[in-house]
């Protein structure tokens, strides 16, 4: 059976939806096992995430982080690689942003902010460079090296935050607060410029950067020569060689782009919300990115939608944990796990069945 024989609505809409529905069903069973009603839990989550402009602000704030990490995973996917290093690359993105913000505090916002954003992207890119180089030139498996690099990044950041970068006189593992010029304006402030008041939330300019990044990834992958090369290498590295493409080079570029996108996640959390570098700020966003990329079928549009879903779940999950102490925030991690399992590892489980069903019906009609 071939994907090309099936209509787009089936492969790109129906099958992912079935996978996600099964993941939710499984999560619903867990809620039932705890002794709570899954329907009530769902209602609380939806109300908490979408019921107010305050809740929506938080939802979109989380969505922003997931768009970045989801795009990061997707770009590597297109080149045929699995970047599990989003956590570490985002941490190093935070470091890059913080180093710029702390070393150039005298600059005005219009100069400093873009530099901080570039710092975040470069931090992630630099952290992806070594695994990328090892994959491309020495054949070390990117999955294993990026896992290892997540831990190394974690250790490095803890070292810096309890040592050289620690704010003098503070006990917490964090840097000094950045100057106001290094902090991205919040959406509430920005809408205020146009005389529109919305509730304060950590939602900030990064959302627009994330959407721009999604558009840029779409153009890159499907409308540039480099994107064509990335897809060729991803589809068949041997064929790519015959077409005069260097898989090693394309791999390097794709993985570093991927790292840069993961690094940009720090703009949302560090430049947008915290205003200082803190420990463990990535909080699993690198792994949500994997789920978002799988669910969104590595397409930027799909990733934005999937990120929105995970944003709803994260914010809704926080509200749920508040209202139902028996269900903790980690419920969202359970749902992520099921989404990765059903949309990723078990994707053919339902795809083949649905495809067979579809073909039986179309044959009967014909």
């Amino acid at each position, binding site marked *: 059976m071939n994907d090309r024989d099936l209509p787009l609505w089936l492969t790109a809409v129906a099958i992912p939806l079935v996978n996600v529905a099964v993941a939710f069903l499984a999560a619903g069973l*867990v809620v039932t*096992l*705890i*002794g709570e009603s899954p329907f009530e839990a769902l209602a609380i989550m939806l109300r908490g995430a979408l019921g107010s402009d305050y809740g929506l602000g938080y939802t979109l704030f989380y969505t922003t982080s997931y768009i970045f990490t989801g795009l990061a995973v997707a770009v590597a996917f297109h080149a045929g690689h*699995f970047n*599990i290093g989003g956590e570490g690359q985002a941490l190093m993105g935070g470091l890059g942003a913080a180093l710029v913000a702390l070393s150039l505090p005298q600059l005005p916002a219009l100069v400093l902010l873009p530099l901080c954003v570039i710092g975040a992207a470069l931090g992630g890119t630099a952290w992806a460079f*070594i*695994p990328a180089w*090892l994959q491309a030139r*020495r*054949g*070390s*498996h990117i*999955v*294993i*090296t990026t*896992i*290892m*690099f997540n*831990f*190394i990044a974690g*250790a*490095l950041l*803890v*070292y810096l935050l309890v*040592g050289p970068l620690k704010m003098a006189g503070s006990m917490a593992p964090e840097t000094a607060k950045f100057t106001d010029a290094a902090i991205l304006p919040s959406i509430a402030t920005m809408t205020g410029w146009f005389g529109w008041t919305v509730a304060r939330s950590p939602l900030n300019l990064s959302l627009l950067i994330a959407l721009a990044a999604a558009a840029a990834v779409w153009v890159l992958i499907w409308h540039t020569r480099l994107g064509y090369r990335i897809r060729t290498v991803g589809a068949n590295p041997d064929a790519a060689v015959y077409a005069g493409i260097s898989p090693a080079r394309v791999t390097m570029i794709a993985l570093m782009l991927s790292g840069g996108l993961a690094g940009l996640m720090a703009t949302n959390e560090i430049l947008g919300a915290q205003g200082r570098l803190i420990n463990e700020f990535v909080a699993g966003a690198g*792994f949500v990115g*994997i*789920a978002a990329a*799988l669910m969104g079928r590595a397409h930027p549009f799909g990733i934005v939608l999937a990120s929105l879903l995970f944003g709803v779940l994260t914010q809704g999950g926080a509200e749920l944990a508040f209202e139902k102490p*028996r*269900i*903790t925030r*980690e*419920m*969202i*991690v*359970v*749902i*992520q*796990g*099921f989404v*990765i*399992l059903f949309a*990723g*590892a*078990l*994707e*053919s*489980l339902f795809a083949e069945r649905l495809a067979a069903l579809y073909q039986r019906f179309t044959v009967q009609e014909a």
Partner: protein
Amino acid sequence: MIEAWTILLVACDSAIRLSVPLIFACLAGLYSERAGVVDIGLEGKLLVGAFAAGATAAVIPNPWIGLAAAIGTSVVFALIHGFASISQRGNQIVSGVALNVLASGLTAVLGNAWFDQGGRTPQLPASARFNEITLPLAETAAGVPVIGTFYADIISGHSVPVYLAFILVPITAFALYQTRWGLRLRAVGENPAAVDTAGVSVARLRYQAVIVAGILCGMGGAYLAIAQSAGFINDMTAGKGFIALAALIFAKWRPWAALGACLLFGLMDATALRIQGASFPGIGQVPVQAIQALPYIFTVVLLAGFIGRATPPKASGIPYVKDRT
């Protein structure tokens, strides 16, 4: 002299304790990957094993029932991985990631809901744990210098799972290299088509390997929750599954070398705990984080081929499709 000997004994003793979960998980990965199924879900299986052991022992205060629960739960996770990667020919990495994420979420959510202690399980009484056992003659031998103290302090005085872990190394080496099953298992990780041609079921062997991996991870998890500690604590594996994966690569997928790598990484962990804040002549303070990161750095360097080459089993990570080529 006596002073240094005592420090060495204490260091070795804590290194052994810290390496036990690594040995279980590393051997688990060894069976799975030698059969051609990549297992980055070791961490998740250790974690659910630890949780199942802690939760069960809290209800039924018997360590053996705790161990059985740990093994059972870990095997269920292993079977999901097996189903995804063997029967469904899904992506083994994605499946492993899914199980890790699922394990970290489920243990936290269920732990909180069942015991209401923020994800922990209750403090276990001694009757619910594997306690340290004194080997015969240990007390008599303790008086003998060097060999006697070595026997009394290092060999004796551990809990049952510790001895189990160390016995499993020669058993694994024997099973892998001296039995027909071991030969087939290794073959299925290198050239599944050949095994298939010989009339042996690839899927059956791979499922067996994956189940063995589940059993071993369950034991490792049980050790963490009901031997080393007195109950399950949120995220108590803290990356041990990944260190075990690093050790497996470091050992180049061989059982005795795996034991060595696990002991080495256990020793590093013990050292990191001890040198906190200590200053060394000439070097100054060594950051604890640097030592904690060492196993990961070693692995990357090894994978890069700068110190020897770590070549995984040829067919690992590749689903076997009968009708291809």
